[in-house]
């Protein structure tokens, strides 16, 4: 009869676990669906105390996976943090709400420069910018000298075979377009073609086009110069102090993750409160220090410690932000990029 006791014990344990989860006074829940490690846990705790609620965080690993799940009808999330292009898709498909900015007084701190010049949603009709990342260049300052803050670094023949660029059509052609002084969202075929020629010239010096391994490559010193995302480079920098991030003076791509409220959110008021809470300048500054991305909150800028303001991997100086651009979906014009990119990939 030992087995029966064992089985009984197991069932009792499960019931106890369920009961444990269910007990306690019913608190309000904020169901946040976001990227992993994308908010300071202390901030979450402070919010929970202030609003006497629980913040339940679930994470996704790509915008597309999140979209697929929501599109199939998954419900229950009160706040999402998609990248801008995905926020636009969600809005067009009426999956997220129009925001009532009166409920987010701290939205007044959002950087007007960013909103007017770069954002898709300039009036914050459906999204509030949360964190900005950049695509720049990282290099090893112990291996190379005379680095100029420019995309021209990929033309240096002395670094042949020690450099990588991203294997991403828009990012990589975008870098060349910026270098040549064009917009990285251009639809002018001669400009795109010129960018292709530029990349082919650089390609002779590149080890490869690479999206993942460049992080460990530059950490170990296998590569000296890589084009990469600021968030990735920051992880490398935590380990290797010789890795320096630079934002090319000609301009670069930026991407922003935005906070949006799904149409079927169960507690939208709490979601509004949360957006307002993270955009409080003090909280935003603390959060930037934790996640090491830039929250475009002008109130927070002055509260940031000097070391962060001087770190191009996090903080984008105003004159450089002017030259930065957001990669937009070009619809049918994408084809022009695909043709040139094919030519780049097949060139020797």
């Amino acid at each position, binding site marked *: 009869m030992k087995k029966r006791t064992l089985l009984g014990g197991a069932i009792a344990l499960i019931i106890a676990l369920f009961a444990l989860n269910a007990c306690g006074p019913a608190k309000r829940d904020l169901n946040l669906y976001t990227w992993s490690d994308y908010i300071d846990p202390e901030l979450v705790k402070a919010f929970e105390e202030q609003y006497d609620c629980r913040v339940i965080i679930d994470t996704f690993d790509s915008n597309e996976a999140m979209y697929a799940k929501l599109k199939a009808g998954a419900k229950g999330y009160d706040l999402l943090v998609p990248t801008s292009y995905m926020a636009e898709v969600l809005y067009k498909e009426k999956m997220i709400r129009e925001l009532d900015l009166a409920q987010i007084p701290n939205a007044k701190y959002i950087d007007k420069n960013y909103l007017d010049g770069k954002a898709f949603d300039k009036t914050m009709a459906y999204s509030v910018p949360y964190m900005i990342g950049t695509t720049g260049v990282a290099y090893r300052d112990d291996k190379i000298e005379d680095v100029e803050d420019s995309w021209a670094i990929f033309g240096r023949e002395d670094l042949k075979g020690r450099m990588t660029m991203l294997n991403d059509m828009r990012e990589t052609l975008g870098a060349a377009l910026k270098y040549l002084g064009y917009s990285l969202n251009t639809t002018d075929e001669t400009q795109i073609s010129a960018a292709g020629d530029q990349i082919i010239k650089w390609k002779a010096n590149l080890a490869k086009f690479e999206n993942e391994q460049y992080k460990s490559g530059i*950490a170990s010193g296998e590569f000296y110069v890589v084009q990469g995302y600021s968030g990735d480079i920051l992880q490398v920098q935590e380990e290797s102090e010789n890795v320096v991030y630079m934002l090319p003076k000609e301009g670069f791509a930026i991407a922003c993750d935005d906070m949006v409220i799904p149409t079927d959110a169960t507690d939208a008021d709490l979601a509004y409160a949360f957006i307002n809470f993270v955009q409080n300048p003090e909280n935003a500054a603390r959060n930037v220090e934790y996640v090491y991305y830039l929250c475009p909150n002008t109130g927070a800028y002055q509260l940031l410690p000097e070391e962060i303001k001087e770190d191009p991997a996090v903080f984008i100086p105003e004159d450089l932000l002017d030259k930065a651009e957001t990669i937009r979906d070009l619809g049918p014009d994408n084809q022009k990029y695909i043709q040139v990119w094919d030519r780049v990939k097949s060139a020797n």
Partner: protein
Amino acid sequence: MKRSRFPFVATTLILVFLYLPILVLFAQSFNDARFGGSWNGFTLKWYKLLFEHRGVITATENTLIVAVTATLLSTVLGTLAAWALHRFQSRMQKVHQVLIYGPLVVPDILMGISLLLLFVNLSVPLGLGTVIVAHSTFGLSYVAFVVLGRLQEFDHSLLDAARDLGAGSWTTLWRVLLPLLWPGIAAGALLAFTLSLDDFVITFFVAGPGSSTLPVQVYGMMKHGQPALINALSVLFMSATFGIVLASQFLLRKRYD
């Protein structure tokens, strides 16, 4: 006659191929360096950070609740299904067999999406409950086939003998059938438990707010955040999985004498 050395070499290479990455991972979980490009010294910091990570802790609780419940459900249902498939031969049982076989061959992504659509259409709120149902669905198939294998070696005259000696059907079940099938049932249950512990694709789709399991949490951390924590987590996770698999192997090997 001299034996060929080929089997030995092939076996060694395959074992190295299978287990070297795991050994590297094991070592990396104690490496101070985040990317493992170089050895920066021994550290337990990833383990420490891991135990402080609220998302990981919640996900571990969820994973265990789901795995234990889904294992119980799929063991009971799977054993009953195996018994029915073995005992009765009819056209309906053929259909039954195909249905049980389905989850073993249907790609995870299809299972995930179709279960999600089912839950959405039935307006079932997504949460631990839906994850448990999903895991039981594929778990019961595995249990059924393991138990079925065991039943094929089963000597039915033992049941007749028990009845001959005056045992009622309840006594026969508890004192004869279940003890004889026990190793198969336990092995199936352990398999279901391991699969539930590891499942990402199906869980990603059917989990609702607050019911993410460890694999879902880990997948998010790999792309964003603190990838080095994952080495430590994988080592713990894998040790547990290995333990369970070893136990199930041991139980499968045991014959009823």
